[in-house]
């Protein structure tokens, strides 16, 4: 019996290589996850608007430390055509504000697969629509991802969805249809949009002439009606092109002038992205994306917002009243404070796989530039995955721009972090 557990090779190779067949046995359950520790150093810029907004009544010096830890647990149980999967995320943060801890169920859903053509999922799950790397204008039913770390897990929404797949011969190889129901009520998905609505969304996917094409729709409900299309295609073995286009009907933009007067403007917003992924002969990967955020703020609107914060800060300094700063905080949350809240962005990431013959070592640099005000963040990073199940990443972000520009007004001049993530 023991012998049968090992796939024994001929004596010449048995000493070098063995394949323990027990590794391939399928279990009806799975438990795993990862544990992460991340110390961060923020270099503060005391002249910026967002520093004044956050630190107007405290002095934390020129740099602050933060210690983050994260535990993600994953589990699944499978019986017949049914599988239940769950993923939890626990964040622990120790910063100048003290300690904070929060546990969130990122995903927890039951999946039924009556056949290889059909699956039905019910519960909390992420859908991750779109072909872009840093941004996804067509991800209508996802929480926004962080372009600074696009591969992080995200929390899902409670949905009922299905996938119906059909394969063909010829230029049209695959068609799949994904209808999604998203209930939004007081205690269910209440951050999605207007409550007391049952939303429907749908995605139609084609693999047509070796091109991935998605048509997506969210026909009103908790959010205004939006349509989208995306594509991705390999032009050659080392060159890929992708793009997304989203049309948002009756988008309502809320903004303020430098005196803090509220305005609202309704228009049809067009968001789009075009990008490439290119692999050189020397194993360097370039990801380049241009993102147009038609729902974003103009340079003038952003300058007004920063102007209002500065006015609030001056008012606080001269009168001791933080009323204007509190109002500025309110308009920041979920509005001006959104990631990449302006109009035109460029993303460039260059990563070199295993330079100098150092296996599992990937240095890279990332540039994210706001094309409207010429401000940017530039992040070199070193990634090492040579130790089984351990991932080490050292990353420094330099943030720069003129006064009243998006990156120029960030609270930090730089951020340095070391992330150690262990998978189990």
């Amino acid at each position, binding site marked *: 019996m023991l012998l049968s557990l090992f*796939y024994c090779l001929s004596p*010449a190779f048995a000493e070098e290589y063995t394949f323990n067949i027990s590794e391939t046995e399928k279990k009806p359950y799975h438990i795993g996850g990862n544990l992460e520790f991340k110390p961060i150093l923020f270099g503060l810029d005391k002249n910026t608007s967002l520093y004044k907004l956050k630190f107007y009544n405290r002095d934390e010096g020129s740099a602050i430390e933060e210690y983050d830890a994260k535990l993600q647990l994953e589990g699944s149980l499978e019986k017949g055509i049914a599988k239940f999967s769950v993923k939890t995320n626990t964040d622990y943060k120790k910063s100048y504000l003290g300690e904070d801890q929060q546990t969130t169920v990122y995903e927890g859903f039951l999946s039924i697969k009556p056949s290889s053509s059909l699956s039905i999922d019910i519960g909390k799950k992420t859908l991750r629509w779109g072909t872009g790397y840093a941004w996804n204008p067509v991800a209508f039913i996802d929480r926004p991802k962080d372009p600074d770390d696009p591969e992080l*897990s995200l929390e899902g929404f409670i949905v009922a969805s299905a996938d119906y797949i059909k394969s063909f011969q010829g230029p049209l*190889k695959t068609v799949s249809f994904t209808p999604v129901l998203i209930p939004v009520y007081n205690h269910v998905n209440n951050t999605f949009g207007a409550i007391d609505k049952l939303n429907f969304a749908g995605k139609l996917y084609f693999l047509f002439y070796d091109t991935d094409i998605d048509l997506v729709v969210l026909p009103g409900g908790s959010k205004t009606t939006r349509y989208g299309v995306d594509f991705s295609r390999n032009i050659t073995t080392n060159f890929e092109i992708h793009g997304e286009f989203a049309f948002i009907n009756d988008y309502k933009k809320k903004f303020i002038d430098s005196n803090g007067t509220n305005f609202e403007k309704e228009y049809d917003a067009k968001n789009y992205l075009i990008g490439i992924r290119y692999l050189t002969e020397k194993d360097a990967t370039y990801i380049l994306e241009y993102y147009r955020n038609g729902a974003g703020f103009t340079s003038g609107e952003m300058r007004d917002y920063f102007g209002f914060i500065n006015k609030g800060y001056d008012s606080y300094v001269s009168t001791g009243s933080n009323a204007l700063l509190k109002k500025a905080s309110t308009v920041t949350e979920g509005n001006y404070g959104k990631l990449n809240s302006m109009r035109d962005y460029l993303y460039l990431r260059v990563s070199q796989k295993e330079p100098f*013959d150092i296996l*599992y070592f990937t240095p890279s640099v990332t540039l994210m530039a706001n094309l409207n005000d010429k401000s940017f963040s530039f992040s070199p990073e070193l990634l090492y995955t040579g130790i089984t199940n351990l991932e080490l990443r050292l990353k420094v972000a330099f943030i720069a721009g003129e006064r009243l520009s998006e990156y120029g007004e960030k609270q930090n001049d730089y951020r340095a972090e070391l992330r150690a993530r262990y*998978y189990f």
Partner: protein
Amino acid sequence: MLKIIIVFLSLLIALPVYAIDGTALLKQVDRNLNPESYESYRKLINIEPDGSKKEFTLFTVKKGVDKVVSLFLAPASEKGRSTLRLGDNMWLYIPNVGKPVRITSLQSVVGGVFNNSDILQLDYAAEYNVEKVEEKGSEYLLYLKAKTKTVAYDRLKIWADKSKKLPTKIECLTEANMLIKTLYFKDVKDFGGGIVRPAVTETDSPLYKGYKSVMIFAKLKAKDFKDEAFTLTFMSNIESLR
């Protein structure tokens, strides 16, 4: 007269070489390596010059000439990742990212000497034409040229055992005949169901001096799957095929 006899005898000796149907031979090599549709388990081991190793375990399913999908079972950091190949199209699904992204055949999802096209290998006859076949003692030497520019290696030289019609060595070359890597096929095993093939593929590369990667095959058996299993939408569900 003597000259005529010599020429005639030479032709008699040479004729069998020219009579070899290279395409048929390559198809035979393909079939002997794998059934056209199958499932298998593989362990990939990357070995560094200092002897340190990193191992990956994969479940792989292939259907027809152009459909392959692989699911990583170990280590924990890779578990749940899957790769899909449909002809020249390749995608990688990472559970954390939650959606498939297009990858290229020259990249490597595991690092080391094996690249994606080695891991998601199609039939050689599907990607290459046989330019010529030579006989080298107990082996055939097949010279292959890629059918399209999208194939990872422009040229292959395959040494195949004459009696078993199984490869013993493959050199992967660029269009300019520069050696990219060499695959060595070892340890011929009976997998059952009439499948007798090398259980180990070793590879080294002049581009990675001192490094070696090894692929060990197990539980290889003929099996048919629905076409829908080889689609982007299905990539998060590969585990259900096991």
